[in-house]
């Protein structure tokens, strides 16, 4: 019977992966906060988003991880970098926050982080998980996700497509600029 050994090995591998991905996410997020160079901020954000995609893999959400990589790291972030290039005279332009702003922001962040962590630990101590996570080959198959999207969640799904159409028209109109108008 080597089943318990296999389970503990899987748990150890999951733990190692989680801590590596968490370090990547958290470190890049800190760089996003402290960096004054907007291009460097964008690159750090990309690493953070890729780390979150890895966390989705750990949580058995393979489709979501792929969507995260394609839409966020591949689409939204490139859009932002284009925005940076189009709106700054030099791509490395800086805007410094004032001393008081830094003090206020850091104190808000520290207080929020401490209180959130305390509340989380308190909550998980009082509410241990009722049901164990599903294990097995592919408990969360993409087919189930597709059935849910085109079944129970059909109306929000269609609303999202209408929203994307209106956003496309609105963004094209807004970004056209005034110089083309008569």
């Amino acid at each position, binding site marked *: 019977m080597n089943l318990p050994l296999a389970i503990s090995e899987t748990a150890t591998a*999951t733990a190692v992966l989680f801590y590596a991905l968490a370090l990547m996410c*958290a470190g890049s997020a800190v760089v996003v906060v402290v960096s004054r160079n907007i291009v460097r901020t964008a690159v750090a954000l990309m690493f953070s988003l890729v780390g979150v995609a890895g966390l989705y893999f750990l949580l058995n959400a393979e489709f979501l991880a792929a969507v995260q990589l394609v839409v*966020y790291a591949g689409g*939204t972030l490139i859009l932002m970098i284009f925005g940076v290039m189009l709106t700054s005279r030099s791509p490395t332009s800086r805007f410094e926050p004032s001393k008081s702003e830094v003090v206020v922001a850091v104190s*808000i962040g520290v207080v929020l982080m401490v209180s959130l962590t305390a509340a989380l630990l308190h909550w998980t101590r009082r509410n241990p998980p009722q049901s164990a996570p599903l294990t097995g080959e592919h*408990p969360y198959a993409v087919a189930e996700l597709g059935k849910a999207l085109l079944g129970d969640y059909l109306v929000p799904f269609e609303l999202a497509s209408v929203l*994307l159409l209106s956003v496309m028209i609105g963004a094209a109109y807004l970004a056209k600029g005034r110089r083309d108008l008569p």
Partner: protein
Amino acid sequence: MTIGLTHFLVLAAFLFVCGLMTILLKRNAIGILMGVELVLNAANVNLVAFNYYQHPGSAAHPLLTGQIFAIFIIVLAAAEAAVALAIFLSFYNSFSTIDVERANEMREQG
């Protein structure tokens, strides 16, 4: 050494706080948008982790509510980023800067 729900929740809280501080500290409008993306990602991690650990459903009928929510949030975040960047471009065409300190008056001068 088992990774539980708490680990993911604490990491998501840290990402949320980082996003909030980015929103508070950046004066570049696109930097603020990046902070918003971090906050939305923290919410997504929470949703998927709760889905996985607290409401996985059964093997025959897995519950995917958290993942569906996360997909819709990703769609909304992409739409929000597109519109916000269009507004920033329009603002830049009028003011030649995207410093939010100067954005308190969004109509053209004169």
